[in-house]
């Protein structure tokens, strides 16, 4: 069966499905928005109606506002929108993140949003869905971006924290407030010491816990009176906190940043942190290839990141790939992605 690739098109508001009259991750207000996950560059406010995952409900409430009109659906459930079949499938990116499967007159599209294949105790594991047209991200689509086993990274974080504790220092670990921070909290050895968080992280921790995700106890750092309490503790904060006066309260400390970009020494040094932990919620070079291969898609659309590079590689390796320039904030910008989730 030869599918026509006109079901989903990009316009100035986002990815649009004309047959169903809905958008996926629109960056401007629309009548109906289907949203892949709750990061700010995918879930914009002020649309009239949203279709989101039930699993991500608590996060969407924070991101889209408590009065937003949310329609919810669990992973695997199907809904018909103007005759177009829509379903959500785990993307493994953050809690509640989904790939959107769209089917109309036998033509199947999968908009994978942001995704990863590596295990994450705080997000349901990525599911391979076969389709005719697969839209993939390309945030880390270069062969220099290959991730280590997550457990090894967790061990490195534990070692760093322990060593700082021995030296009477606090350990300030910067990570995006939504997703990465909770993943780290779930991975580390919480018996090493007390854990404090920045306000924005703390709020999202609560949303995760209310969604049934097990996280170690964390204390809101601002609620602490005595500086000495921070000695030997781990403090999880968004990257923006580092340059601010907020960190002054921690006295003697070591700093670290957890991000896929930390694999490159220059990026690590630009951050001017003591340590860089290579931990990403995006697929690495090999995961991207696996996802594309397993989709069995006839056409692969590439968006977000190293678009031209990945398109070229795919076309040279037997796929039919095309660029899809969406206005996601993270376009080619390592720094942009970091700020999108502060």
């Amino acid at each position, binding site marked *: 069966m030869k599918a026509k690739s006109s079901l989903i098109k990009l316009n100035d508001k986002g990815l649009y499905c004309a047959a169903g009259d809905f958008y996926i991750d629109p960056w401007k207000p629309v009548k109906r928005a289907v949203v892949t996950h709750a990061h700010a560059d995918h879930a914009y406010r002020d649309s009239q109606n949203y279709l989101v995952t039930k699993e991500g409900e608590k996060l969407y409430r924070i991101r889209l506002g408590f009065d937003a009109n949310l329609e919810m659906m669990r992973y695997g459930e199907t809904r018909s929108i103007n005759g177009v079949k829509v379903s959500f499938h785990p993307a493994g990116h953050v809690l509640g993140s989904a790939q959107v499967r769209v089917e109309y007159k036998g033509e199947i599209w999968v908009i994978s949003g942001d995704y990863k294949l590596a295990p994450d105790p705080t997000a349901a594991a990525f599911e391979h869905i076969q389709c005719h047209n697969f839209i993939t991200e390309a945030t880390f689509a*270069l*062969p*220099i971006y*290959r991730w280590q086993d997550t457990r090894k990274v967790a061990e490195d974080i534990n070692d760093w924290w322990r060593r700082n504790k021995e030296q009477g220092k606090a350990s300030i670990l910067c990570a995006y407030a939504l997703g990465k921070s909770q993943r780290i909290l779930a991975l580390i050895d919480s018996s090493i010491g007390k854990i404090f968080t920045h306000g924005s992280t703390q709020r999202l921790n609560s949303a995760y816990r209310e969604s049934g995700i097990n996280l170690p106890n964390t204390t809101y750092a601002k609620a602490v009176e005595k500086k000495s309490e921070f000695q030997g503790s781990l403090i999880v904060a968004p990257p923006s906190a580092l340059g601010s006066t907020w960190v002054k309260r921690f006295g003697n400390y070591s700093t670290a940043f957890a991000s896929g970009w930390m*694999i*490159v*020494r*220059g*990026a690590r*040094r*630009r951050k*001017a942190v*003591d*340590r860089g932990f290579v931990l990403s919620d995006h697929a690495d070079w090999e995961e991207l290839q696996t996802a594309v291969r397993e989709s069995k898609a006839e056409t692969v659309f590439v968006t977000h990141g*190293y678009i031209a*590079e990945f398109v*070229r*590689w795919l076309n*040279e390796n037997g796929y039919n790939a095309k660029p899809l320039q969406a206005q996601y904030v993270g376009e*080619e*910008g*390592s*720094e942009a992605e970091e700020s999108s989730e502060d």
Partner: protein
Amino acid sequence: MKLFTELYVELDQTNKTNEKVEALKFYFERAKSEDAAWALYFLSGRKPRQIVPSKKLREWAMDLSGVEPWLYEECYHEVGDGAETIALLLPFNSRTDETPLHILVEQKLLPLRAEAENNQHEAVISAWQAMDYSQRLIYNKLIAGSFRVGVSQLLVTRALSQLSGLPTDTIAQRLMGEWQPTAEFYEKLVSSEMDADETPIARPFPFHLAYQVDFPLEDLGDVYDWQAEWKWDGIRAQIIKRENQVFMWSRGEDLITERFPEIAQAAENLPNGTVLDGEILPWLDNQVQSFMVLQRRIGRKNVTTKMLAEIPVILQCYDLLEFSGEDIRAEELNLRRQKLESLLANLDEETSKILRPTETVSADSWEELAKKREQSRSLRVEGFMLKRLNSPYRVGRQRGDWWKWKIDPYTIDAVLIYAQKGTGKRANLFTDYTFAIWKDGELVPFAKAYSGLTDKEIRKVDRFVRDNTNETFGPVRSVTPQLVFELAFEGIQKSTRHKSGVAVRFPRILRWRDDKKIEDADTIEQIYALLEVENI
């Protein structure tokens, strides 16, 4: 190489000096002398020159990782460092190479240079297979001749001093000059035996270096407690005459005796047991010439007679460190200065033309001195050096007794027209810029500059470049002329190689003039006016 890799990683992971010193101590406490010697060799900025061409390393790595040349290029642009790109691309390996550093360098690395290509290929592949990521990174850098560690000589000296119980001066002095990375050298370096004869006659003293004044001059106290000298723009050098031999050292610890034969020859006439500190300057018609003139001479391996005639040099002497074979660095500056003057006064006429005491400038107040500093441009000097009269000659860069008091640089407003991604810390960002000024109603390239912006500004310019690219020539992008920057530079000279007709020295970005439009940028006429001042 395991211990050395750990040291490299530790040093790379911290910005705090005391942690770096601790890491160094940890290493030197545990390393065998033969390994420590090599580590020291690398830490002090010495490195073997390229063993295998980078191009070959790249080819073998691409082959092993199945990456096409175009994709390698893309990766390289993100990383900004070939050795690191290769380490990131090679197939994962969790094994660690336990080969001692000296074996690796002496038996595996250095002999490889003379080997045939297929043997080199085989050796490199098997080395990679035995190493983890960090070891591969170091190995690649060593083999490509690009190894350097982010640690200053001062910290290495401090760590070794703390370990050995020797004063930092002693360590610093023993580390100067030429030495071989052997166990014997290392053991002698940290040995407490202080033999007077131990000092080879060529060994220079560590240079005393100064910081720029960054506070009101009044904070220095009484102007009479200070000696002001013109600050020359040449090559800092130490001239040694011992046992009828002359040695000249640059601040970068290069032996430069043969580069400046006229000075070396003049120094033959110094008494034995003399060490001078001074500045090598191009000197013609009793006047200093631009540093750019001197650069023409530095660039040449062989100094020709023609060059000697066209660009003669002299030494402006400003300090005396050894006198009658005695180290006098602990004496006060005014005493050293008296000895320097009488020493130079006793030289014959020809020698005195080459070895001159540098002029000191007196003033009754800081205001008066500031007034005198205004002559700097016309005298072709960079301003003043301020030295406390009762200070000893110290080791390394120190705050307190010596200060640079440089004049403000020239400035000009120019327009950003080309951008290129940076390397190292700035890989992946557009940080290398070309600026233009107006000439006959057209913007012509004028200078390249890299530094001077904050990280935040760099990111904004990076975004601008991505959004306003007109054309791409390889790694260079031409952008819509829109952003104006204030540039600073130290000197200016006519040039036939530059489209604007002038070349500038030390161009750098002073600030982003987002209040200015491109029409407000400076013109070539304004640059020519500066040329008049320089009088070249």
